[in-house]
């Protein structure tokens, strides 16, 4: 785990020296399992700052909700850094107005996996050196962190922020792309009926609360396609067509923009598996265009560029 005091010291320095106007990070939440995103605007508040594996939000979400010209300091992990880069590519924020405090990420703990193993009455969670200790009212549990990691963190490729202004802690080794690719290929190998049955089973639990949209840093349209009334693009009720349409188009809008942070899945109150959709699109983008979202702040995503070289592929 990165040193919390070092993070606090850096946040204080940024605010005291006027480098940024606000630092976006986490503060303790109502329960030990849910630290909350927080906006620190003066030095005294920074004492409240926390950071651990349970900080599950993607903070880049708040980038598009703050004024464009505001100088923002932000705690970023690998995926958040890539989301920020992707937003800079899409001109949602200028990189000069950002100061990124990078944290090499050891993975985000899925709170559902804790609840599954230890029950809901968790009093305290302590995390040290890839070991997680959980206190409940009557019991004490010890788990290895890998056991509790969120699925998208298990296949993470870039845990270390790629373009942070300062890195707190040691850089971690890169992950293995083959792990994620294997999952996609295994799913692809199923029959069409099985694939549809799985999708149907996941989509039919949707209650259309759009928590996934709110949690996603790349979903920043002022008017989402599902909110259009005239023309109505898709059924807006919790009907089969509406639920499936939402998940298909939500995922497809993330093509070559998704950084696979998994915030959508963690935000879902119905525990719908949806990163398997964006994961497929990410891997197609790597295979076809050798493009991964958010690796730098210049390269345009494949759908925003066109080359005539394509024609050889499409004419065949």
């Amino acid at each position, binding site marked *: 785990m990165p040193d919390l005091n070092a993070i606090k010291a850096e946040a204080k320095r940024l605010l005291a020296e006027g480098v940024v106007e606000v630092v976006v990070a986490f503060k303790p939440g109502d329960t030990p399992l849910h630290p909350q995103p927080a906006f620190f605007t003066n030095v005294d508040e920074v004492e409240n700052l926390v950071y651990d594996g349970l900080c599950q939000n993607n903070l880049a979400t708040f980038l598009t909700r703050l004024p464009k010209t505001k100088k923002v300091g932000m705690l970023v992990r690998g995926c958040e850094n890539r989301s920020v880069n992707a937003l800079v590519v899409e001109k949602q924020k200028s990189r000069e107005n950002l100061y990124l405090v990078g944290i090499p990420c050891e993975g985000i703990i899925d709170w559902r996996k804790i609840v599954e193993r230890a029950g809901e009455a968790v009093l305290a969670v302590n995390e040290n050196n890839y070991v997680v200790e959980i206190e409940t009212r009557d019991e004490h549990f010890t788990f290895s962190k890998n056991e509790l990691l969120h699925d998208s963190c298990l296949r993470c490729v870039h845990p270390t922020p790629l373009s942070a202004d300062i890195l707190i802690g040691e850089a971690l080794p890169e992950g293995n792309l083959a792990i994620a690719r294997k999952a996609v290929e295994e*799913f692809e190998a199923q029959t069409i009926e099985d694939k549809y049955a799985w999708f149907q089973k996941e989509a039919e639990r949707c209650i259309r609360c759009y928590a996934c949209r709110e949690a996603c840093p790349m979903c920043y349209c002022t008017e989402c396609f599902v909110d259009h009334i005239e023309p109505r*693009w898709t059924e807006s009720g919790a009907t089969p067509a509406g639920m499936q349409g939402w998940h298909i188009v939500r995922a*497809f809008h993330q093509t070559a923009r998704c950084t696979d942070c998994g915030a959508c899945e963690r935000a879902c109150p119905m525990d719908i598996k949806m990163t398997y959709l964006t994961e497929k699109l990410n891997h*197609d983008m790597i295979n076809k265009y050798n493009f991964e979202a958010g690796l730098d702040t210049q390269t345009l995503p494949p759908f925003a560029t066109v080359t005539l070289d394509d024609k050889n592929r499409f004419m065949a």
Partner: protein
Amino acid sequence: MSLKPKIALFQCQWCLYSPTDQEWVDSQLPENIHLIKTPCTGRINPLYVLNAVQGGADGVMISGCLPEQCHFKTGNMAARRQLEEFNDFLDYIGYEKSRMRFVWLDLQDRGIIQKRLAQFEKDLEALGQASNLVTRVKVAEGGQNA
């Protein structure tokens, strides 16, 4: 299959240059083919395709101009990138890849679209009726208030 497969034909308004073909597409299409004419293939949002699929189309055909002959320079290439990926994506979810087909049409082509449609229809008949992803509530005959 007793009935002919339902096909949604998305057509770029510039790609059928021959007046007789255009006339045929505009007024003599068989009943099982539904024409959606767009200003360019680049205007085809994947949402439109999804709407066709959810509404019960057994196949989707997209016809556009040759790569270098787009009226808007690059509209067809941009569309092809998106729609090809959308096709792969729908296959991943459960709508067979072969139910979507792209046609490049040349300015000099005559009578191609009919042949391609006939071939596509034959292939779709072999595949059978689409059942996956067909979920949209049918609008009552005569409009929503009927």
